[in-house]
């Protein structure tokens, strides 16, 4: 089903939201991704990913406090839904399955040699 498919970038975004727990809003997510995966992404690209994840129901959002440094504009906090968590697990499982078969394959090859 198209709706539950999780792209690689979206997976990273989901994971970083999970890691940040209570502090997951735009700037922090951007930083977290930069820190962990070493890639700098634009806020625009992040916005696309976030809004798509919200659309799919993997993320929930709520407005938070406004600070002076933001010119008095409120933050928007994100939270991974249960659906999102299960999608993550599913993606992880699929990947593990693949890795296993690749290992098996290697084993056979080595055995034959």
């Amino acid at each position, binding site marked *: 089903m198209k709706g539950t498919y999780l792209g690689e970038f979206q997976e990273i975004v989901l994971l970083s939201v999970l890691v940040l727990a209570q502090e997951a809003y735009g700037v922090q997510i951007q930083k977290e991704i930069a820190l962990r995966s070493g890639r700098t992404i634009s806020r625009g690209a992040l916005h696309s990913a976030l809004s798509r994840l919200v659309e799919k129901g993997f993320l929930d959002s709520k407005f938070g406090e*406004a600070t002076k*440094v933001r010119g008095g504009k409120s933050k928007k906090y994100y939270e991974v839904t249960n659906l999102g968590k299960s999608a993550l697990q599913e993606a992880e499982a699929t990947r593990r399955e693949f890795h296993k078969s690749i290992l098996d394959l290697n084993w056979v090859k080595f055995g034959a040699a």
Partner: protein
Amino acid sequence: MNHDDHIPKFHHWLFSFLCKEELYDELAGDLEETFAENYQFLGPDQARSIYKKEVLKMLRPSVIRKFKILPKFTHMDMFKNYFKISLRNIWRDKEHSLISIFGLASAILASVLIFQYTNFETSYDQFHDQSDGTIYRIPRMVLDDESQELRNQNATTFHGFHPTVALEVPEVLHSTHFSSADGAFTYDDKGHNTDNVFFTYGSFFDVFSFELISGDKKDLDQPGTVFLSESLANRIYGGQDPMGKLLTYNDNNSNVVVQGQVKGIFRDFPSNSHLKSEAMLSMTDFNAFADNGWFGNRRLSQLTWRWLGFHTYVKARKDASPELLEKKLGDFVVKYRSAFDKANGRTQVVKPQALSDIHFIKDFIQQLEPAGDRNMVSLFKLIGILILLIGWVNYINLASAKSVRRAKEVGVRKTMGALKGQLIKLFLLESIFINLIALIIAAGLTILVIPNFHNLVGAPVFDNIEQYIPFWSIYLLLFVAGAILSGLYPALVLTKFNPILVLRGSFKSSTHGTRLRKALMFFQFATVLIMLSGVLVIRSQIQYLVNYDIGMSIDQTLVIDAPPPFLRDSTFTEKIKAFQGDIEGIATISGSTNSSMVPGLPNTWGLTVSRTDRPANESIHVRNASIDPDFVSFYNMEIIAGRDFENELVGDQNVIIINQTALRDLEFDSPESAIGARLRFPNSDPLQIVGIAKDFNYAGMKFAIEPMAMHLNTQGTSPFISLRLATKDLKNTLNQVEETYLSFFPGAAFESTFLDETFNNIYEADQKFQAVIKFFTIVAILISCLGIFGLSSFLINQKLKEVSIRKVLGASVMEILRVLTTEYIWLITLSTIIATPIAYFLIDGWLNNFLVRVGISPISFVLPVIGLMVILCLTIGSKTWKAVRVNPSKTLKAE
């Protein structure tokens, strides 16, 4: 300082303006937060640039708000739908859409090429700054006092004109003159042949706005100064800085040698300038050589008002009218010349020529460039317009014929409540859309064919296209207007349909607009016929000129430039004789001759002569050539009285051979009576006539035969050596000749041309004209064929039933073919009747430009008609044939 003041204002505003409201707090806040942080850690500059990039990357469809500024924009959806419908219609009928679009695109392509060519032609010399004064060329004309006829139109004037005129005529702000030459620059033992060397003064740059990149124009007033064009400097010095370098100039046609220093570099002259100079030298050097032996014992200062050949230009005050200028300059010249002219019964006339007209001024000798032709330019403009019209005609014909197919759609739309205005809008949009696609395709094609087009017309007309932006803006506007007009007719036809009739199904074939369609096709046929006739006649005229018997044989002749004057030492005559001997020893060469005149090259040498038995003022101007004893036999010329020169007779240095025209102009009764008569020559004793040559036309059939006197030169100092080749293996022979030449004259540049090529170059302008006309005729025919093909195939599909019924009732295939093609035959007949007189009139006018012209043969008008019939049969033939061959039961069954 607060970071808020540093945030990039425009980007900040842009984002707040474009961002969706519900996203603004989150996104703008995040951006600002990031900015504040970057500001602190990376500094203001980097923070700003990151912020700008982030904003731009943020502008994506999901973020940008939907604008609903005006209520009018609710029509947007309607337009979107129209657009979709147009696309579907274009896609559904691919064949016809392709024909419409391709036809239009070719028409646009052709018109763009033509108009840019005419733009280029009319833009000649327009780039000079004339805000502070108007630039004129000063030609020289002579009025015969007795007959009041103008004679001797020359693009140059007297040496004495330039420095004096600005002193004596207050209306003249600046003046300059130059002498045009060609020669070789030698630097580092390497020679570089250069055409268009100007001997001039610094005042050249006062009159013209050519750009001096480095150097001071005043240096040109000092001897030993060389100015080079950028490209020539590059050629000579590679990448080195040319300024201050020493080099030597050797003139090709005189003994002028200048040891000079590069003191200036000027920007290459644009291609739409009638002046084209690669190098400039100081006129003071030229004058020094002239004063040192060119006039025997006389000084240049005595002759300054007698020496012609100086291209002279003035910049006159803007408020001085051309009439006033003509009067003042005329008086000025007459004042200095009357002493010489009175005795000869003539008066000098000065008619200043405005700079922008010069490119189109014909019939002046010693012009720097062959003149353009205003009529030709207007003719091309007309062809451009006609071709564009043909393209639109195709579109209108196809679209209105096709309208039947859309009738049902119109019926349904009308029943659903669509207003007529809305439907017109729909169809207009469709036609504009098709025009637009064609325009884009044409633009792409134009860019592809520009190099080929430059070759075809022989000038880089598309360079500096930015000069012509105003014209192309107007073109685009007119194009849009044309696109709308051509869409309007089909739109009107379509929206006229009565929905009840259409939906009932009683409306199957289109008789709407057949009359207009016929008129438009008639227009296409007539245009194509006129152009075809034109091409045929132009072709036969050029053939006629090329094959005309000029009284000299020029086949298999190679002409090489004799060694330049600087190689002429005391042993030169022996050397050149030895060289000619060696060359004639080559088995494949049957003869050689040394002369100052060869067929196909203009001969600018001329003198005034008179008979010794008549008063000296009854003089005529004759062309003058020096030849060796072999010349007459080499070129197969005929001596009708007297004898040819003979090598052994020492006295032959002082006799001449004249041609028939000179004989007539000197008013001798018969060739025989002229033999032994003597003629007065300037600068020498009277010379005796020993032979009369039959008239020959060395300058090509575009020029009248002029009186000519030939004298003997056995010194080998004439500038051309002609060789007759007795072989088809030109390459080897050429190599042998070059080797021999260079072994005799090391340091000289070997330049050779085949005479038939040079000779045919005289007609180059006409051949170019023919090539261009031919190209555009083919385009016009192609576009018309496309249109007729599309139209006929469509109409025949509509007549399938009629064909079948005729067949069932017993009509033969031929009869049906006749029925289907009668319309076209009639149209062609009618077009022929109208087109032939127009074509005859136009062609006759063109042919009258020539001294000798072919008669217009009827074949030139019959052949195009036959050609058009054949093309027509081929284009409509296959479809018609298919329609006729189909089994009637197939078409009649489907009711």
